[in-house]
């Protein structure tokens, strides 16, 4: 296997590594960088558990090759809290008990953060459509939607 040199930025930190061309960005995060917060669900882009942003764009990291991340800026769930202080979305997911098993939660948080950066005041319908690519088999989604709405309101200063 011919490994390729990849330089990328993950949560603001410069990262250099050697990448097998078939490794996904998800493989790189979990297996090479030991960042296990990003989860693998389906591996085929259907469940959204592996959601990260790349140059500000929400993507499934299982559908991006590690070599494609060369030169890009990647943000993962590990970069969401500021030190010990949780992001408002993280706090509201706890307050609303918007999780049970928790496998989908990192992806839902990253996807919700990307939504609120694009649309600080989404309707319930907009939240549901935006999060259609993030599957949760436990909660029935209602508490997740409430948590996102509540976090959005707090972030708007209401």
């Amino acid at each position: 296997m011919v490994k390729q040199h990849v330089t990328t930025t993950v949560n603001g930190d410069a990262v250099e590594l050697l990448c097998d061309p078939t490794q996904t960005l998800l493989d790189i995060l979990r297996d090479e960088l030991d960042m296990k917060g990003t989860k693998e669900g389906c591996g085929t882009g259907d469940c959204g558990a592996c959601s990260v942003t790349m140059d500000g764009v929400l993507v499934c990291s299982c559908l991006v090759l590690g070599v494609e991340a060369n030169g890009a800026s990647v943000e993962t769930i590990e970069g969401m809290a500021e030190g010990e202080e949780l992001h408002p979305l993280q706090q509201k997911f706890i307050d609303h008990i918007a999780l049970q098993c928790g496998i989908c939660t990192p992806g839902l948080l990253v996807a919700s953060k990307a939504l609120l950066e694009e649309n600080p005041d989404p309707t319930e319908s907009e939240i549901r459509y935006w999060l259609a690519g993030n599957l949760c088999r436990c909660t029935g989604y209602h508490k997740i939607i409430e948590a996102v709405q509540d976090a959005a309101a707090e972030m708007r200063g209401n």
Partner: protein
Amino acid sequence: MTDIRYEAPETLDAAVGLLAGESGRAQVLAGGTDVLVQIHTDRVNPDLIVDIKKIAELRAITNNDGAWSFGASVTGKELMDNADFNAAWPGVMDGVRLIGSVQVRGRASVGGNLCNASPAADSVPPMIAARAIATVVGPNGTREVPVEDIATGPGQTSLDKGEFVVSFQLPKRAPNSGDAYLRFTPRTEMDIAVVGCAVNLTLDDSGACTNARVSLGAVAARALVVDDAAKALIGTKVDDVAMDALAAAASAACSPIDDKRGTIEYRTEVAGVLAQRAAAIALERAKS
């Protein structure tokens, strides 16, 4: 996993050279939302992956006095973020907006949706209805190919070794034109079309239809151009009689598969219904 190599050339010539010169199997990579799944499930086993999305021509969106063109690896999100393109071709965007999830549209492209050659690809019928032309580059230079002639069957295209789609050209729109795409799926999101239908039409000042084009997806081995359905609209005011003829022509064009997501009979019936509903939306857009 074998000894797969990855290249990301920055020029068309370099990409063509890599693809044409590869003695093993070369795989073009755009957004990767289909290709990566196919590689990881061993449905394709390339020796060389050529990532074409670092080539400038593949990424540009341009409006030349109302005649739009965009690169084959422009993402769905990039098109959705372009308000002027959305206003010009709302039916094309009906299809683009239905591709996968937000995450998938952050990577997936219209070029990839076309060249993956699924009969159910959502952006293909509205691009066909729009009379989009694909610019294809390869070892023998460039050629212009109508979008409906790229896919030849499930997973199969008319592209030769070393060829790939660079960009799409859409014709300048006549006044009073509108387009629309609808699909039927059991779920509203993250599903594959059981039937898809795009209608693109132009009206004269009296409201009569002077030009129309209808394309159906997921009811044959590739997306269809349905001339009889367009003829049912042309010369009419898109009234109930024309709508009935449209539905009959759309249903008559179907030769669908029979599977758990839709029987032959069901898909054939739904094609007519969707044609009418898409025509009604296109009509409304043409008048507004």
